[in-house]
């Protein structure tokens, strides 16, 4: 392969390098582009590679133009539009692949490379992790190597030498770009418009819940956020990361109260009483394209959410004004013990008691019977305990793959399948509560998280998505009740893997093998934790450089004590002096490297007592040294050294040969001591 590559004529090798870079640019996009487009792009690049290697002609415009039109039609069919971010990226990818078939001059190479740069950036819409950055760096290096190779004149050195030159350029460019990255002021927010939310949609909690919504999330191990605690980590079964509060039920789907029509308004006064010690932590939230941020109940204060104000609804949901399109970091202090809305008027209770008329009649009747009437009426606390006891005693199963439910979903679940996921338990529990006349609602969010080995931090993944319920008790306010824990207590005490039955389902087996969710112990889990730490540091240092943070960094510099500042200046001055001296020294010894080697050799022999006479040439010197005293090997090395030196000095060797000869001479120099 290598021999084949090096035998390729130069212009062909250049094109092959360019195609390689295009493939590297497009590879991450294959995860997000429609499959047909990825396949088409790969086929086009391959086609170009075959044309290049076989030395055939590129297809004419008569063939390319219909292909381009077909591609545009395909994009339109896939996205329903050709405008917007994602269709735009698809069009660019298509354009790049087609452009590869229409390259004739140096100018086309520039167009190709510049297009690749833009596509490289488009990749960050989807992922900005460490791996993305590493892949970007590798791709840019290949791109620049392709660009560099096209700039050579008649002589083009081997790839290793081209990369060497590129390496020296990067040695300058990388520190410079790091400096620019941290020092150049950032512009806050979008320059115009807002990033469209729809295009950003990803897996994550939505504003509604129907059976299966959260179970599908549980299949994704994508991290949602990392929380780093400065106070002791709360116990696992207290880690309820509040997301959305769902109050409206239409018989099948739970939706956020007033989700339709009304924008989230800040409730200026929330009737809340706080008790006990708060816990403090910092959350690094991945871009979700949604407008909610997560905190433990009850978020007392949320700091440092620059350029994106938030509101807290009366149900204690935290909603930002703009969708979160990049990784954000914020500090929260949460109160684990509180009384929320201890006094609700009957008017205020009513929305939390509503049930659609005629739906799930069996459940409603069962609940009413359980609660009793008249003097036999159970107190709310007793009613809750009775329902949870029922969940515990009856043969309910916790499963990620529940059987399908009919139209009366809660009836089917409670009296039929009796197998489900948190959403089934929370949903039906709230229906039962409301039937009993106890105000209740569903809360979705995340529960738990995986503790990272060394740090005092947790990583919460989509698979930690959870639904629980809240009931309102007079004088006590809203109280969290997690009916799932009645069925699968391990779900809330440990995590999903622990809650799932140990039956060898392919899913669990695979997860255990992959060490997802910290289920597997040992090296894989440890490595995963290390990686999470690194990702956390990465997102905080690289992705989270906001204008506010930059300002804070500068402020921090001002507060550095004078002594330290002077020391830093001194170190900097010393370093630059050393660097200057190094440059000067290199400049000074910039003679013929061959002569330098010869001088070294002569010095070496002089120390042995055979100094070279000024009039002596290498041949005469060789003859005299051969008569001198030395070991057999040294004699051979000396003779060889002088022979090679003479051949290089007075012969007509190519630069390449000279380089090899110098390397050989350096080796010989160590042997002829």
């Amino acid at each position, binding site marked *: 392969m290598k021999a084949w590559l090096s035998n390729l004529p130069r212009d062909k090798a250049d094109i092959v390098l360019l195609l390689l870079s295009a493939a590297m640019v497009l590879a991450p996009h294959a995860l997000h582009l429609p499959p047909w487009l990825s396949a088409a792009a790969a086929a086009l690049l391959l086609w170009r590679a075959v044309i290049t290697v076989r030395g055939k002609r590129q297809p004419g415009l008569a063939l390319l133009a219909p292909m381009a039109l077909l591609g545009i039609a395909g994009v339109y069919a896939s996205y329903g539009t050709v405008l917007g971010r994602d269709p735009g990226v698809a069009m660019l990818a298509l354009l790049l692949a087609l452009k590869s078939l229409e390259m004739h001059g*140096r*100018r086309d190479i*520039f167009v190709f490379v*510049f297009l690749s*740069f*833009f596509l*490289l*950036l*488009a990749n*960050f*819409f989807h992922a*900005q992790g460490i791996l*993305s*950055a590493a892949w*970007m760096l590798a791709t*840019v290096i290949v791109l*620049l190597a392709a*660009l*560099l190779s*096209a*700039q*050579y*004149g*008649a*002589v083009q*050195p081997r790839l290793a030498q081209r990369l060497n*030159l590129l390496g020296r*350029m*990067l040695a*300058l*460019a*990388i520190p*410079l*770009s790091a400096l*620019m*990255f941290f020092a*150049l002021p*950032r*512009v806050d*927010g*979008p*320059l*115009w*418009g807002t*990033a469209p939310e729809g295009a950003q949609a990803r897996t994550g909690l939505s504003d509604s819940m129907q059976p299966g919504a959260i179970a599908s999330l549980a299949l994704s191990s994508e991290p949602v956020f990392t929380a780093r605690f400065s106070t002791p980590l709360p116990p696992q079964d207290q880690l309820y990361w509040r997301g959305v509060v769902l109050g409206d039920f239409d018989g099948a789907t739970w939706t956020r109260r007033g989700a339709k029509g009304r924008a989230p308004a800040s409730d200026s006064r929330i009737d809340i009483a706080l008790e006990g010690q708060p816990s403090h932590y910092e959350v690094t939230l991945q871009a979700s394209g949604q407008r909610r941020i997560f905190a433990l109940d009850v978020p007392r204060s949320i700091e440092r959410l620059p350029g994106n104000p938030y509101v807290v609804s009366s149900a204690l949901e935290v909603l930002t004004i703009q969708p979160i*399109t*990049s*990784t954000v970091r914020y500090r929260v202090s949460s109160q684990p013990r509180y009384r929320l809305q201890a006094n609700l008027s009957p008017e205020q209770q009513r929305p939390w008691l509503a049930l659609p008329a005629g739906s799930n009649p069996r459940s409603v009747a069962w609940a009413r019977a359980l609660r009793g009437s008249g003097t036999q009426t159970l107190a709310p606390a007793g009613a809750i305990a009775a329902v949870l006891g029922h969940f515990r005693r009856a043969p309910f199963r916790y499963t990620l793959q529940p059987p399908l439910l009919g139209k009366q979903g809660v009836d089917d679940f409670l009296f039929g399948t009796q197998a489900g996921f948190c959403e089934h338990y929370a949903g039906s529990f709230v229906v039962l509560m409301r039937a009993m006349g106890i105000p209740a609602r569903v809360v979705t969010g995340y529960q738990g998280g995986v503790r990272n080995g060394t740090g005092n931090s947790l990583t919460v993944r989509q698979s930690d998505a959870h639904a629980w319920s809240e009931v309102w008790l007079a004088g006590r306010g809203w109280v969290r009740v997690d009916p799932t824990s009645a069925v699968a207590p391990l779900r809330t005490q440990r995590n999903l893997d622990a809650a799932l039955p140990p039956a060898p389902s392919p899913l669990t087996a695979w997860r255990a093998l992959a060490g997802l969710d910290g289920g597997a112990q040992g090296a894989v889990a440890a490595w995963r934790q290390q990686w999470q730490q690194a990702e956390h540091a990465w997102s905080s240092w*690289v*992705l*989270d*450089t906001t204008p506010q943070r930059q300002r804070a960094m500068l402020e921090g510099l001002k507060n550095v004590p004078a002594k330290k500042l002077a020391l830093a200046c001194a170190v900097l001055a010393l370093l630059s002096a050393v660097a200057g001296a190094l440059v000067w020294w290199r400049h000074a010894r*910039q003679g*013929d*490297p061959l002569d330098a080697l010869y001088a070294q050799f002569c010095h070496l022999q002089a120390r042995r007592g055979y100094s070279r006479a000024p009039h002596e040439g290498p041949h005469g010197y060789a003859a005299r040294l051969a008569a001198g005293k030395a070991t057999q090997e040294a004699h051979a090395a000396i003779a060889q050294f002088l022979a090679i030196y003479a051949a290089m000095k007075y012969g007509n060797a190519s*630069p390449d040969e*000279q380089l090899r000869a110098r390397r050989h001479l350096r080796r010989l120099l160590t042997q002829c001591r």
Partner: protein
Amino acid sequence: MRWRTIQWLPARPWLGAERVHIRPSGAGLAFAALLLALWIAAVNYRLGLGYALTYFSASCAIADMLFASRNLAGLALAATPGSPVFAGSQATFTLRLINRSARPRHAIHVAIRDSAAAPSLADIAAHGETAVNIVVAAQQRGWLIAPPVRLSGSFPLGLFLAWCHWQPEARVLVYPQPEHNAPPLPLPAGTVQQVQRPSSPDSPDLPDGALELAGVRAYQPGDPLHRLAWRQIARHDGEHVFSKQFQPAADSPAGAAHGSIMLEHASLHALAPEARLSRLAAWVLQAERTGLSYGLRLGPLTVAPALGASHRDACLRALALHGSPDGSPHDWRHDFPPAQATP
């Protein structure tokens, strides 16, 4: 890049960094637009890595600027004086680009001012040198100064164009154009009829009685082809070339007693000044071809009769520089600094 009138071109054969100019190339301007687009995308979508990519690309462009300038800076330049040519033909200057640093230099365009000829591309290895020939039409007799040269290159990434101007310190002597179909040599009376020279060099060998074979000597540039001593060449190793030497026959009439003629500038007063020199040049060549010893009288200057390439060159030089301020054929080297000296 447009050539401007360059008032002062430094004579120092060393391209200091201060002599290298730089500007973005067309592709560089397009790259700047790309950077702007990348930056806007990074701002609009709040992409931390988008900023990283933008700044990294910008830094690569800055590195390219530095490297493009370094590709030229520090280059040592020398010009090898070209060999004399006749007016109306092409003079060739050999420019030597010498790289004294350990880094190779690549893809340097060498172009001549006012010339539409495609620039030649030079690569110079580390500690190496490359010779580039530039060809200039020699129109007038006298010294032809090497034209100003522009060295340029957009290596390594093509985003910036570095260039510098250089006046090579080399000149080529342009002999007067020999008159076409010049009249026969002005032989002294009595020999005119007998000495017939070929009208063209490839005619059969001379059967003239005025000259006789004097011997054979090693070929010298300028010896006519029909004088080649084929027998001697064949007898020898076939690599060395000999030409036959003639001298006026011993029995040729008087006036050629010394076997020589004198070419007089003054005798051609009927012609225009340049035409006189053209004819004299043609006669010098004719005399050299026929092997007739000849001298030249040109105003105050007199060249004694002789034969041979160096004599011919001396005569042609005198003709080329006739009337010019540095007409003296011996001191012309001193009006340039020693740096220009031939290698």
